[in-house]
């Protein structure tokens, strides 16, 4: 940001501006803070509390109850599988696509580009996609979540733009030495592209971690449900219980348990956030404002 404005005198404008921005910051923080505090409250205290900023008798009982059932371990296992396998699979495909599309003088490149861009404009919709996964026999396997997440065309084109910006002279000298395209990719292109690779790795990790939609469509077995879906189902228990709880004996989760589940689903993203923060500006800049 601008350098000259330091040592400037504070005006009313500055003060109001600062206060408004601070308030917006507090509005962002408060719901998180509230959720975390509730996760440490006893059920009795939650029911009675007015707006306690701290739990009077902090308790881990909500966390104990979600850790005791096997579901959390299964959920972490599913989510981690999706993230790790999905990341390797998706980075491989994305890098290959970006590399090939960045090569100059490749016959048919225009067709290849159109081939990957058309799906950004038009998709077959939810039902044909659902039927595809069903026909591929992927229902109730984690592959139904992982395989469709292979390429984000947007990231692939972002990476391609970066590859194209690498000085041609480096590649040419490598080619003169007789390096194949694969060696070129591994020894020249990739090492020079670490900033964009790191950006896309981080963003893809977050997206895979946050995946719930395909899991909801394709995973019926609750032992396979990833964290986000487990959380979603717990959060919704209240909508169901209004009418049917007494009849069907559905487990109703307390707000404490729900918020504890929110926290365990959220914490890994919080741990990743400092790294994300380092890269997100780059990520959004390379791609979004090219106009």
């Amino acid at each position, binding site marked *: *940001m601008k350098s*000259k404005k*330091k040592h400037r005198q504070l*005006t009313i*404008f*500055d003060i109001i*501006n600062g206060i408004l*921005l601070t308030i*917006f*910051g507090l*509005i*962002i923080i408060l*719901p998180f803070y*509230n959720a975390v505090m509730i996760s440490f409250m006893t059920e009795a205290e939650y029911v009675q509390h007015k*707006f306690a900023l701290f739990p009077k008798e902090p308790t881990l009982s909500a966390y104990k109850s979600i850790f005791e059932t096997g579901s959390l371990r299964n959920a972490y296992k599913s989510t981690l599988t999706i993230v790790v396998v999905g990341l390797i699979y998706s980075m*491989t495909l994305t890098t*290959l696509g970006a*590399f*090939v599309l960045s*090569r100059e*003088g490749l*016959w048919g490149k225009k067709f*290849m580009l159109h*081939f990957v*861009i058309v799906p950004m*404009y*038009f998709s*077959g*919709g*939810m*039902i*044909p*996609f659902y*039927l*595809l996964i069903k026909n591929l026999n992927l229902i109730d396997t984690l592959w139904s979540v992982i*395989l469709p997440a292979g*390429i984000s*065309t947007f990231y692939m*084109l972002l990476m391609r733009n970066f590859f194209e910006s690498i000085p041609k002279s480096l590649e040419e000298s490598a080619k003169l030495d007789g390096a194949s*395209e*694969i060696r070129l990719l591994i020894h020249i292109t990739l090492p020079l592209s670490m900033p964009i690779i790191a950006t896309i790795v981080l963003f893809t990790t977050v997206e895979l971690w946050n995946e719930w*939609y395909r899991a909801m469509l394709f995973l019926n077995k609750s032992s396979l449900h990833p964290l*986000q*879906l487990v*959380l*979603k189902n717990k*959060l919704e228990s209240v*909508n169901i219980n209004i009418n049917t709880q007494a009849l069907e004996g559905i487990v109703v989760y307390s*707000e404490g348990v*729900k*918020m504890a*589940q*929110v926290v365990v689903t959220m914490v890994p*993203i*919080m741990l990743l956030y400092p790294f994300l923060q380092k890269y997100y500006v780059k990520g*959004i*800049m390379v791609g*979004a*404002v090219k*106009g």
Partner: protein
Amino acid sequence: MKIRDNVDRFIKENKIDQNWLLYILFIPVFIYYLIFSYIPMYGATLAFKEFHVGKGILGSPWIGFDKFRLLFSLEYFWTVFKNTIIISFGRILFEFPIPILLAIMLSELNSDRYAKTLQTIYTFPHFLSWVIVGGIVKNFLRSDGFVNNVLVYAFNIEPIPFLSSPDRFRLLLYATSVWKSAGWSSIIYLAAITGIDEQLYEAATIDGANRMQKIIYVTMPGIATTIAFMLILKLSNIMNAGFSQIFNMTNPIVNEKIDIIDTYIYDITFKKVPDYSFSTAVGLFKSVINVAMLILADKVIKKLGGKGIYS
């Protein structure tokens, strides 16, 4: 042997023999798109067929536009269609300006370090799923949640039924979306502001412009192109009114006011006896409008001197 010669020459001229490895490297990418994008695109023909489970998409008989006729005759479909458009425009009206305002305010802040800290806070919710944000928000705004407890016990006001007032729920969608994404969206404008020539501000100072005048006459024109592009992108995306958010925040009391095409497709397919052909028709209807809007937006952006949406 003439054909053979021609083929050889073609291969030589286009360097296919030199680049053969690149073509092989592209095969997995090609297969990925073929399976996960192009087969479902073909599957969209289901909208013109009567789906029989045993026969699959290929074998099911053609029925023409029957499903579309049925669709257009349904009153509730038009409700959903209207909701989609209203919510999309509502988002442009209420959500679109906030990141611009936020970027300008942040750039006017005296301390760069404080601006950075605030930006860190503002951007965080963007990285959470709507499942998490929906959960946090629903708890925060419950009838006995934090906000209502403050209203009742600190200000002695009746609690506000945020989550169960159909008329206000769209506003709640906009507000929570601003909460989640405004910080993230402001980055692009902040970057545009950073790119404005410092001399313009100095010249304005010499001319005696005050802070507000500098914002209006230097900053705003400096980011006008970015604003225009972002607005066109938003307009072109009008058929996507925010499935994830609505799906994770809705409840039976308010659903009719915020049921959009995407949530409608999900409901008719997975909560009732499914008519796959009909659901596909709804999806196709949406996709076709969506494509038209995107192509239009692409043309406009290119006219304005940009490189187009996706290239």
